[in-house]
């Protein structure tokens, strides 16, 4: 085995070209990592919105809350099911109405689709209180147009400040509270008394969904059997986390596919850069290679040594690229969630999966860029090479 110190010092000896190559690889790794971070962030936000201990009722076949409707009778019937948890004689259930409405952005860039969620006091107190915490102000009172807004929506829209007022559906919606839903999609929503929302938007007589707490997560199949057997209300039930994950699927796939295509195009350039650098390394070290071969190092050993050297470049690129990308770990971005067509705020999320994925991508570029120069190095005829 040719010592790794030989490769490291050979790279250091040509630090300018090696540095430029590492930088090129790092840029591609950073783009790739940022794409993964965005996709992970979206998944985390939407998956985090749901809990496996909860179940959500939707209209049969509805793929999102937006196109779902549950009759009030149906909600009442299913909330009374024995598989639904009870607290103080009341079902732990939150029937909710989900409406999207256009609200002007404060930055003057026009209106955005914003989600309004109608909720009941019981639903909030029994089911949502632990995950959707009022951090400023207070809870809206029942029977009023008061609203509370998620922290990701705070200050984004005209009137969306504590003490402010949002104008919509010929009404004023005074903002009396701000809530924190721990980075989930709820954080981008505006919450209001369900009856007020139904009247303002003419959606009386039904809810969009009803979320319930299961008596135990293992009771879900039993509840599902009940709902599937009931043909009166045309409803279906899903585990809440599964539902939100399926809603995120389209957006995650969109980001991943688009980002990966961009990263792959960039990677052609970076791989070519690595290849040129490695060819230059081989060309300038012909005598060294010939000497190694004369001393008894085999072709495959020389081949491996140059591939390792290329991988060193690419791993250095991975480290720099990941370090750069991780700086964006706190960046939040807003995108239209294809599942609901509303603006949802996501946070880029840098984790081990991103680091591993980006490093594997870098290794792939290093391998592809290094293999041909390494083959050339291994094939150099010893006699000519030793004379350099």
């Amino acid at each position, binding site marked *: 085995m040719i010592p790794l110190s*030989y490769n490291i*010092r050979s790279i*250091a000896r040509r630090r300018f070209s090696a540095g430029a190559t590492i930088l090129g690889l790092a840029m591609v790794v950073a783009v790739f990592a940022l794409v993964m971070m965005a996709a992970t962030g979206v998944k985390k936000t939407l998956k985090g919105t749901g809990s496996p201990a909860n179940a959500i009722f939707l209209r049969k076949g509805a793929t999102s809350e937006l196109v779902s409707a549950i009759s009030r009778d149906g909600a009442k019937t299913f909330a009374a099911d024995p598989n639904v948890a009870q607290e103080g004689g009341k079902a732990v259930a939150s029937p909710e109405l989900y409406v999207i409405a256009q609200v002007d952005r404060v930055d003057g860039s026009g209106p955005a689709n914003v989600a309004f969620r109608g909720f009941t006091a019981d639903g909030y107190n029994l089911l949502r209180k632990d995950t959707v915490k009022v951090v400023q102000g207070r809870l809206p009172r029942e029977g009023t147009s008061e609203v509370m807004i998620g922290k990701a929506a705070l200050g984004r829209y005209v009137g969306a400040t504590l003490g402010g007022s949002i104008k919509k559906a010929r009404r004023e919606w005074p903002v009396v509270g701000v809530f924190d839903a721990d980075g989930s999609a709820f954080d981008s929503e505006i919450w209001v008394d369900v009856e007020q929302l139904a009247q303002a938007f003419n959606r009386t007589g039904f809810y969009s969904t009803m979320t319930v707490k299961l008596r135990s997560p293992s009771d879900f199949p039993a509840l599902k059997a009940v709902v599937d057997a009931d043909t009166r209300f045309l409803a279906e039930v899903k585990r809440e986390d599964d539902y939100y994950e399926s809603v995120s699927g389209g957006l995650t796939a969109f980001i991943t596919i688009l980002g990966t295509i961009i990263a792959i195009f960039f990677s052609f350039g970076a791989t070519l850069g690595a290849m040129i650098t490695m060819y230059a390394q081989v060309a300038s070290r012909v005598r060294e290679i010939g000497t190694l071969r*004369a001393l*008894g190092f*085999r072709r495959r050993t020389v081949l491996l040594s140059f591939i390792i050297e290329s991988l060193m470049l690419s791993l250095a690129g991975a480290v720099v690229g990941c370090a750069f990308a991780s700086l964006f770990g706190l960046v939040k971005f807003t995108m239209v969630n294809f599942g609901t067509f509303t603006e949802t705020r996501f946070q880029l999320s840098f984790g081990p999966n991103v680091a591993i994925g980006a490093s594997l991508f870098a290794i792939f570029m290093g391998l592809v860029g290094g293999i041909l120069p390494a083959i050339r190095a291994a094939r150099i005829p010893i006699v000519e090479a030793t004379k350099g």
Partner: protein
Amino acid sequence: MTTNGKSIVEIRNLRKVYTRDRQEVVVLDGINLDIAEGAFEALMGPSGSGKSTLLNLIAGIDAPTAGTLRVAGEDVSQLSEGQRAAWRARHIGFIFQFYNLLPVLSAEENVEMPLLLTSLSGAERKKRVHTALGLVGLSDRMDHTPKQLSGGQQQRVAIARALVADPTIIVADEPTGDLDRKSAEEVLQLLTTLNKTMGKTIVMVTHDAHAAEAATVQRRLDKGVLT
């Protein structure tokens, strides 16, 4: 050093033909040669006489077109590429005209290179490297890279590298060709010592008559034929 009469190199009807621009160029033509174990032989001849080619064949870095070539008890011409590499590591120590040290490694690391192909432990390798560098008088230059050494010192490091794995034969291609007179003398003195006191078989190619005088046997090649 007197030889024991046993041949370490046996060459019979050796031919080496290169093809250049579809023209066949005969570099070595029917060479027969025996080199005794413990000999110090000089191969002389004008440029293009085939002396370096013959040395490369003996060292196993080139393959003959025809004939047999037994070195250190092995028919080198029959070995595969990989087998020849392993054979070289075991039997051949190289000294090149331009030293051929790896520029990014220290003297110590350069000398250690052939030992990386053996099963010796790190401590054993270190011990051997220090002995070899001591033999060539460079114990105080172990951490120096080739750039920090003079030409003569670099060639002495190369000699330490050639002998560190205790090879059967040391092959030297114009070992003094790039050195000033004083350094050349030191190198020749070192080779003589290796031959006389350690019994190393040395085959040296040189076009310098003075250098050849250090050898115990001088042979001349002319137009691919030993004269």
